[in-house]
């Protein structure tokens, strides 16, 4: 999608920048993946007896696909609130480096933190990837408005998908529901693989996949945290050692 040039008067108002952010939602294939993922989350919530309002509110408040799937499936399988909270906290650690790496692109030298709270809330895999792709084409002083537009647009798409998934769930053929749920691991695996730049990233992805089945035998409730810290640390150590050797 072509944006107006950086010095164009199109960028002069915050509202226009917000609108360009909204429009950018239609420019990426990730929107489609997100739509299908939230269709699946809606259907999953229906099958595990959560209310429609609850799942919509979870999309607004949580705004992280894998975390919502982990939350709904652990609660649905009879885990306690504390166990679910630990599992979700662990799956959400990845948001920290995402926020840290993308905020320098969004903020100006004088931007106060409180103006970045909403933009930080919108950060999850999709917005994170799209910021790296789109923000260089947006003037710096309009980037917050642009990110707000992009975030609102993506959330809106997902809320609609939730409603459709939830209402269809009862009539959804099982094969179709399985295909939708398979989208999440596929899309997350491949978009992470695409973003691997350093040796440490590639090793972390491979080892993280390989070590989880081992860690899951421990049945600690924080298996993902154990395999993640182990795999990530090994990956970091290998890269550190290679760079200095």
């Amino acid at each position, binding site marked *: 999608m072509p944006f107006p040039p950086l010095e164009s008067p199109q960028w002069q108002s915050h509202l226009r920048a917000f609108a360009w952010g909204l429009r950018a939602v239609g420019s990426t294939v990730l929107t489609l993946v997100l739509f299908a993922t939230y269709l699946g989350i809606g259907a999953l919530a229906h099958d595990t007896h959560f209310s429609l309002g609850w799942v919509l509110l979870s999309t607004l*408040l*949580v705004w*992280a696909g894998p975390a919502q799937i982990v939350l709904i499936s652990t609660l649905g399988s009879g885990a306690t609130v504390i166990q679910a909270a630990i599992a979700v906290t662990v799956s959400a650690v990845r948001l920290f480096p995402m926020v*840290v790496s993308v905020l320098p692109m969004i903020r100006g030298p004088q931007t106060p933190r409180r103006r970045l709270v909403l933009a930080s809330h919108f950060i999850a895999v999709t917005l994170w990837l799209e910021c790296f792709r789109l923000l260089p084409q947006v003037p710096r002083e309009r980037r917050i408005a642009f990110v707000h537009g992009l975030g609102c647009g993506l959330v809106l798409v997902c809320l609609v998908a939730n409603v459709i998934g939830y209402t269809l769930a009862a009539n959804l053929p099982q094969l179709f529901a399985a295909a939708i749920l398979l989208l999440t691991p596929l899309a*997350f695996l491949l978009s*992470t693989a695409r973003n691997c730049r350093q040796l440490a990233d590639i090793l972390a992805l491979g080892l993280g996949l390989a070590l989880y089945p081992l860690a899951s035998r421990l049945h600690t409730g924080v298996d993902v945290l154990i*395999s*993640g810290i182990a795999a990530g640390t090994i990956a970091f150590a290998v890269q550190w050692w290679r760079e200095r050797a």
Partner: protein
Amino acid sequence: MSEFIGDWHALLVLVIAGFLPNEVWRMVGLWFGSGVDEGSDLLVWVRAVATAILAGVIAQILVTPPGALASVPDWLRYVSVAAGFAGFALARRSTFAGVACGEIVMLAGKWWLG
């Protein structure tokens, strides 16, 4: 509202187990982020751990599949994801091609199984 969202208990569970665990990391990132250098060893390690945790979450969904995905046999789930990765690699790292490839293999496998 109680019909639409559920009782206060369901709402409390959502805030404690859903909202707070995610928002905490975002706000920690916002608070400390400005002081961390992009190329520092600390951030490389944090990113490696974050990537490995996401990989673990992916593996978790595949090993203990939620909902309807459990109707797909174990081997077919793994083969589908492997096929998706092969498609992704062959199509010059196209996420779309990889996702399509994985889904087609899963659907074909289910159809073949009957």
